[in-house]
């Protein structure tokens, strides 16, 4: 896993649920590229169209609450998100993000201190997020334990393939 990630950000509010991230009417889609075309439509139809490649989504508390749909992570990855930072995450979303290697960073209070379009740098080893536009620094929770093992392997699929001796 890359230990530093840099990108331009978009900032969302609290309790952004999975229906806003990926509306139910698209759940039958299975092609990741198609899934990627509808990211955050429930918040604003234009977010996906204008999202900077390699950008970072910043949100408030309980990001990804609601359903267990993995599409919510797939759509963010294929919109071009390189990481997601939030004050806190809903449990299933967090697991799905780790499994598919969309790095989820818990950074309490950050959503109140950064703005759309800022450039952010995440240092996963140090547990620090820096707003390169304003110079402000934030302490983030370090990823450890099982989630770190899975992210280090590049996601649950390579992790399991290795564990099961498939590769």
């Amino acid at each position: 896993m890359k230990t530093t990630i840099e990108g331009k950000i978009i900032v969302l509010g609290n309790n952004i649920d999975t229906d806003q991230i990926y509306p139910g009417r698209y759940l039958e889609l299975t092609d990741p590229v198609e899934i990627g075309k509808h990211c955050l439509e429930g918040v604003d139809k234009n977010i996906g169209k204008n999202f900077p490649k390699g950008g970072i989504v910043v949100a408030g508390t309980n990001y990804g609450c609601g359903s267990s749909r993995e599409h919510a992570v797939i759509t963010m990855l294929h919109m071009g998100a390189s990481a997601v930072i939030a004050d806190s995450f809903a449990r299933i979303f967090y697991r799905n993000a780790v499994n598919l290697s969309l790095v989820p960073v818990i950074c309490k209070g950050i959503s109140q201190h950064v703005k759309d379009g800022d450039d952010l740098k995440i240092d996963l080893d140090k547990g620090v997020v820096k707003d390169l536009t304003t110079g402000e620094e934030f302490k983030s929770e370090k990823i450890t334990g099982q989630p770190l093992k899975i992210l280090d392997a590049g996601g649950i699929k390579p992790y399991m393939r290795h564990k099961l001796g498939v590769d």
Partner: protein
Amino acid sequence: MHALEKILAKNSGKDHVSAGEIVTADIDFAEINDLYLQTVYSFYEMGGKKVWDNTKCTFVFDHYAPAPDEKAAQNHKEMREFAKKNNLKYHFDTNAGVCHQVMPEAGLAYPGMILVATDSHTTTHGAFGAFGTGVGATDMATILLTGKLWFRVPEIIEVRLDGEAPEGVFPKDVILNVLGKLKADGAVYKAIDFTGSYVDQLGVAGRMTICNMAVEMGAKTAYMQPNQAVLDYVSKRAVKPFEVQYTDDDFEYQESHQFDVSKMQPTLSCPNSVDNVHALTDVVKDGDVELDQGYIGSCTGGRFEDIEVAAKILKGKRIPKFKRLDIVPASAEVMRRCIEKGYIKDLILAGATIAAPGCAACLGIHEGILASGEVCMSSTNRNFPGRMGSVDAKIYLASPAAVASSILNGKITDPRPYLDEIKVTD
């Protein structure tokens, strides 16, 4: 230890577990719904050939039942092929209903087990004294490969519900009151144990409604100590012998929240978040809230008891012109029982639309989608923007009795006078 910890300990081969510990536990039953063809893809991508145990996993085709379009039909087809290839002992096709209703009916949810499904509302099975939790598609694929899943042992909070429910207060009202206090992130990563005299006397359907919505507070799982009603239900149905777990007397909850059910009133969750909770009478005191659609269905509010109360309120009456009421039984068994009792006929005569058992419009897929600007009152579990269709539609969550009374009037209405009427005719 708590009963939930004992379940996790037993299934991970340990004598003792405690909050924060990571365990790898055997899964007693795994269910995949029809949103998750990705599970099949991920299974093969990870090198899977056959599922770990063909008696311990199943598909339930509920979200797209019956298939509304060609893409959904194709997804079903590929999942059926996987089920056939793996010779899965159980299979629930588009005729069955919502997974969380179908599995207990089939005896696949029982005390002391770990049940994992690709659906956030798997907390429902706490109603049976099981550890039920939702996962995403690829997590599920790892279960199909190995029969195991890693868990962080959750902190456990107590929600104590004491007192008798007054007229007009149903299990749905009770859980909305809890949500209004704990809020949408009040139990993230934690387990909720519902205790108290109200829970002790509560029937299976009501217990399921309450545990179902624990996830709306972010809970990983929910629990209720099985009572006689649960034991009667599962002993007739369970596919294998089960062991009820009990919480030790010296177990300490991380937090405890007390509620007096006898002081509650009919309650609404108002647009656009589940924890935007108000007493129904407060919502209408400054003016009428006109409705376009009523909706009674889902794993939260589509059971026999839910349709029964609606049928009794609407029997011999007619919902107004230009208003509509969708009734979606949670399962084929629920629908059959409602037909036998004459409730479906009463509802059709009252102007309701009866849809096939399944998830239907609860998550905006089909059978009752809302247009921009429309207002729906619903017995379901979520009122997020766009949940049932247009992001500009508004959804009020309520008990089935409140939904039936309200759509009958075309506007949000206190169900209590209608419940009085039922009592007289009963």
